């Protein structure tokens, strides 16, 4: 079964260490072709008649890419057109050590059966294994191994199928290709081959343009200094000549960036880089090495806004002028530590969304691409379909940035659709926020229960039958993924029984399978204005798991015995079967509670719950829980076009807080239970107390209105917020609460074994977790599994008990939640724009939320809209500004702006840049001479440079 040959491999690691490894060569590694008679394989992957029509090679053939082709042209290989590819183990291993993301992608491609990619383990095949020769570099050896493998394939295919099939080497290395041709192997460069593909001309655009090293110098002047190689950078970082940090490009000025230095050095934490040459081809998010400049060359962060708009690629003179502009504006006192980028430690490129700016020359094939993210430089791509792509949102990947090029080179990946379209823009915002939103794959769907599904006897075994209870759910209108339901009834002993029933999602999603992995990766359901990106497939989220009132549903119940003072006497957790008696909206539930005529069981149960909730809430607030506020709005959508026609601030009823109260109670009870049972690996949620300095702005702002906010504890803060009222200004309290929300820290998931601080500041609870929404949060699924294991209703599995794995999951969940939040805000911003587009120009009243050095931030409660009014413009005479940090106030000419002042602004949509449409605000009241927008004359031209920052 195994013919083995033992031999010795030597490697060096650190010092000189001889490592002896065995290397078995086998003759049971098969070629992977369907219909091969010599190989005894079970599941051949490669088709016997590969169809890829190439002008270069008329016979059916397989292609074998070498390492560099795989690394750089992965976009092409991922295309569905490319099939029947043989990936050698040598190539795969080289890719693995050189680029983890590409390795992941090629592994995904290999696992897709319809792509017919086969991995040939050539290093362990008796006939294709070669030893490194004397004086041969590792790269040369690998190239030779690849050529030998291609040769073997050709001989093997010939023997088996006559002269019909062929294997072709694809390599971009000229020497490798020459040697291959010498050895009688058909070899093409990737470009040659892709161009020769009949019927697929569009693939050419996706070729990455890697210029050969030797060609690089020949054209044009060198614009940038050379990057210092990694080994010397590391030496430099160790000795302190260079500093390592994350490169963050400026949003407003393409010639400026900051580098956040890693480590905990006190000074020079943040280094300013200015000017194209100093930026030296670093791109946002790269890890770079910087060299500090001498003190006399230090620069100040500029306040001007510069956008890269030049079409001509080589006008460096122009750039230099602009750079001068930067310097002249700097004043002595503002100078900050400055530096220049000397080398790149790690690129963090990803595919970017954006739009094509077509070249002015009609026949040109090279065009510039402007990414949606302003921190990314423009990218030069080569395409022949520029006229088609113009006006579309497209995705482009960067391939490299040669020293003689003003812009990085890239290639077109795919098109998303027409810019400005609702679907396209939604796609863009999902992509930019890294939200997985593809439809669920077949593998994932295969783990869904088969329909029609019903509860069987086996399911009932570990479950309590609670179908007789009067359970009902209370949710916002139009909600289809109902994951919680409640009940309450009197017990014989005079106490109350209250139950919270949560959809039993963990029953359907079993640990480890594809469905579980997919939902773990998604982490959360993302709610956009008109769309929901589900975490679990629709069948589960809106049918089997949704606790609708039309049938029996599996649930995980948390049942308390509570007395009339809302003291918990007894807690019980059980898996159960329930039948919801009614799915109510908040308004309907409120109506039932208030109605005097209704006295059915559901209404009684609701009233009982409501009464208890009030006591619970009061107790919680007494303990110091915060009631915060944020301006949230809801769009009314046109039912046909799905355009927003009106917006409305969210209304809060008693029933909202009733449901919330019991969910909090369930979460706390579950958190205690799982922590007691699994002290090392419970998934909990904490909310750290913010540092006191965060509250500065809140305290100052309140003082300016003669109110006092105490911040020494959560309780003091909550109390002082309650007291902070002003009879003449009822909205002030909400404003203060909005401001307080901005001072808070993010709540995060964590694993109890990895942290010691469990406190939840906002809820004033010593321990907390998420249990109540397993349909839309993965954290809750984990908590369900832990709780099920704790009560013996389900078995554990290894990953659940592994605190490091759990910590990893938490990290992903925190990231996904943050991104979901950002994309929600971006979606609201986009819909606000649509709304104002249809509405035209509006004047509205708002309040000043913040005062900045040269601007005020205005909140318009009616729309929940926040925008900035700038007082300095490019083409306008500067008004006299005086900023007082202590109060804080901003005096413009004679008008003094305090925080919370009422102002009137004009809102318009600026669609001049189709990629960055924005809401502009202009001041109408109070009057500032020479600055205001005239009250009536709306039609007359654009207002001044105003910018709305929605995603702060």
């Amino acid at each position, binding site marked *: 079964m*195994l013919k*083995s040959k*033992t031999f010795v491999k030597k490697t060096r690691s650190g010092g000189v*260490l*001889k*490592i*002896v*490894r*065995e*290397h*078995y*060569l*086998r003759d049971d590694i098969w070629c992977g072709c369907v219909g091969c008679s010599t190989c005894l394989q079970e599941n051949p992957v490669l088709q016997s008649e590969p169809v890829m029509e190439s002008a270069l090679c008329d016979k059916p053939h397989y292609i074998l890419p070498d390492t560099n082709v795989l690394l750089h042209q992965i976009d092409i290989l991922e295309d569905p057109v490319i099939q029947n590819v043989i990936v050698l*183990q040598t190539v795969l*291993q080289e890719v*693995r*050590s050189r680029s*983890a993301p590409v*390795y992941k992608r090629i*592994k995904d491609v*290999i*696992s897709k059966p319809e792509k017919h990619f086969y*991995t040939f*383990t050539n*290093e*362990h095949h008796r006939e294709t294994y070669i030893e490194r020769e004397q004086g041969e570099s590792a790269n040369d050896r690998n190239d030779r191994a690849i050529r030998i493998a291609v040769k073997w394939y050709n001989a093997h295919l010939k023997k088996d199928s006559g002269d019909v099939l062929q294997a072709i080497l694809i390599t971009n290395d000229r020497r490798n290709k020459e040697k291959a041709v010498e050895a009688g192997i058909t070899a093409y460069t990737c470009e040659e081959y892709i161009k020769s593909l009949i019927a697929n001309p569009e693939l050419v655009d996706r070729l990455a343009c890697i210029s050969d090293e030797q060609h690089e110098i020949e054209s044009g002047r060198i614009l940038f200094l050379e990057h210092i190689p990694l080994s010397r950078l590391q030496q430099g970082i160790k000795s302190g000549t260079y500093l390592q940090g994350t490169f963050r490009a400026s949003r407003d000025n393409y010639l400026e960036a900051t580098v956040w230095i890693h480590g905990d050095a006190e000074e020079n934490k943040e280094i300013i880089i200015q000017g194209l040459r100093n930026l030296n081809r670093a791109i946002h998010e790269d890890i770079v090495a910087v060299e500090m400049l001498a003190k006399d060359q230090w620069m100040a962060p500029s306040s001007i806004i510069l956008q890269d708009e030049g079409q001509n690629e080589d006008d460096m003179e122009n750039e230099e002028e602009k750079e001068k502009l930067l310097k002249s504006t700097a004043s002595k006192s503002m100078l900050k530590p400055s530096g220049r980028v000397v080398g790149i430690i790690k690129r963090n490129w990803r595919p970017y969304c954006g739009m094509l700016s077509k070249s002015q020359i009609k026949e040109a094939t090279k065009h510039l691409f402007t990414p949606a993210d302003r921190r990314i430089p423009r990218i030069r791509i080569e395409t022949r379909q520029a006229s088609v792509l113009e006006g579309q949102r497209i995705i482009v990947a960067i391939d490299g940035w040669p020293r003689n090029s003003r812009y990085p080179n890239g290639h077109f990946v795919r098109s998303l659709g027409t810019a400005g379209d609702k679907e396209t823009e939604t796609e863009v915002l999902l992509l930019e926020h890294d939200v997985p939103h593809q439809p669920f794959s077949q593998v994932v769907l295969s783990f869904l229960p088969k329909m029609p599904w019903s509860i069987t006897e086996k399911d009932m075994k570990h479950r309590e039958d609670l179908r007789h209870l009067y359970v009902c759910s209370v949710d916002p209108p139009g909600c289809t993924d109902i994951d919680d339901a409640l009940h309450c009834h009197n017990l014989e002993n005079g106490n109350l029984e209250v139950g919270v029933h949560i959809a039993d999602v963990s029953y359907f999603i079993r640990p480890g399978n594809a469905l579980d992995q997919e939902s773990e990766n998604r982490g959360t359901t993302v709610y956009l204005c008109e769309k929901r990106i589900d975490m679990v497939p629709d069948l589960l989220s809106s049918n089997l798991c949704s606790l609708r009132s039309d049938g029996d549903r599996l649930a995980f119940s948390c049942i308390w015995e509570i007395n009339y003072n809302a003291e918990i006497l007894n807690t019980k957790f059980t898996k159960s079967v329930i039948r919801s008696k009614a799915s109510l909206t908040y308004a309907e539930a409120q109506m039932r509670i208030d109605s005097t005529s209704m006295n059915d069981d559901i209404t009684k149960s609701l009233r009982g719950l409501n009464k208890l909730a009030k006591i619970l809430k009061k107790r919680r607030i007494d303990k110091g829980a915060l009631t915060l506020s944020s301006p949230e709005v809801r769009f009314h959508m046109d039912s046909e076009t799905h355009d927003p026609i009106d917006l409305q601030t969210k209304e809060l009823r008693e029933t909202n807080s009733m449901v919330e109260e019991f969910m909090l109670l369930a979460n706390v009870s579950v958190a205690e239970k799982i922590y007691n049972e699994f002290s090392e690996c419970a998934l909990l949620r904490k909310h750290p107390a913010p540092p006191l300095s965060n509250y500065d702005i809140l305290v100052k702002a309140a003082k300016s209105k003669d109110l006092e906010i105490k911040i020494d504890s959560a309780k003091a803060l909550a109390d002082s917020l309650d007291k902070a009222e002003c009879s003449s200004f009822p909205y002030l309290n909400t404003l203060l609460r909005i401001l307080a929300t901005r001072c808070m820290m993010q709540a995060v998931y964590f694993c109890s074994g990895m942290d010691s601080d469990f406190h939840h500041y906002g809820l004033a609870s010593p321990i907390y977790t998420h249990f109540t929404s397993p349909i839309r949060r993965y954290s809750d699924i984990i908590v369900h599994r832990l709780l099920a294991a704790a009560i013996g209703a389900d*078995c*554990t*599995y*290894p990953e659940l*008990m592994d605190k490091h794995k759990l910590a990893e999951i938490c990290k992903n969940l925190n990231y996904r939640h943050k991104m979901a939040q950002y994309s929600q805000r971006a979606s609201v911003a986009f819909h606000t724009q649509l709304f104002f587009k249809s509405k035209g120009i509006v004047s509205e009243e708002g309040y000043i939320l913040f005062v900045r050095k040269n601007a005020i931030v205005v909140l318009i409660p009616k729309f929940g809209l926040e925008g900035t009014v700038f007082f300095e413009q490019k083409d306008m005479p500067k008004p006299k500004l005086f900023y007082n940090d202590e109060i804080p106030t901003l005096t413009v000419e004679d008008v003094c702006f305090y925080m919370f002042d009422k102002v009137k602004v004009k809102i318009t949509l600026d669609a001049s840049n189709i990629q960055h449409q924005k809401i502009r605000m202009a001041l109408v009241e109070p009057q500032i001479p020479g600055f205001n927008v005239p009250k009536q004359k709306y039609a007359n031209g654009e207002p001044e440079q105003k910018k709305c920052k929605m995603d702060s």
Partner: protein
Amino acid sequence: MAGLELLSDQGYRLDGRKAVELRKIRARMGVFAQADGSAYIEQGNTKALAVVYGPHEIRGSRSKALHDRAVVNCQYSMATFSTGERKRRPHGDRKSSEMTLHLKQTFEAAILTQLYPRSQIDIYVQILQADGGNYCACVNAATLAIMDAGIPMRDYVCACSTGFIEDTPLVDLSYIEEAAGGPQLALALLPKSEQIALLEMNSRLHEDHLEKVLDAASKACRDVYAVLDRVVRDHVQEVCTLLGE
């Protein structure tokens, strides 16, 4: 660099074996003339030498003697040149004392000690080259040496280590696989009766996986048995021809 891929998607390990395949085993019995029994074994790059004396009278203090069975005395050591770096290894360090104890337990279970009351059997094993699975190589070598000495045993004692990586049990771990730090299980089995002479595990393994790993380990031990049995039969045949029968 991103660590080593211990098991590729195609199911091959670093050295080209599949998950359930053993390394190549080569063994010889009767390598020394002075000792009562001796054997040498190679399991891939792990090489071990075992020497057996006895049964003979108790040496040293007589108080150690057991009236109803023989005393099994083991000693495990590693040659200074057995690893990549030359290292002096004094006797009686923690690691080798533990190994000694394990060997003792294993063979007390396998040798029919009640046949030799008040006597002693000495087993000396030395690792000449270490490349993972040291305990297992020692057990296998000692089994052959005991047979060479003609001491009756219940059955062969066959040992094999098993790791658990990426939800797959890997059999007969090499040094790099051991160094990766996953759970590792060493099993010494009496293959005919499938009785376990010794089972040792280090690092944590979830109990759901234990059965899977144990199955793989006992399958591997039976594979080892097949090889050892072949060696013994060949050796006996050779001896017979030499004796001219």
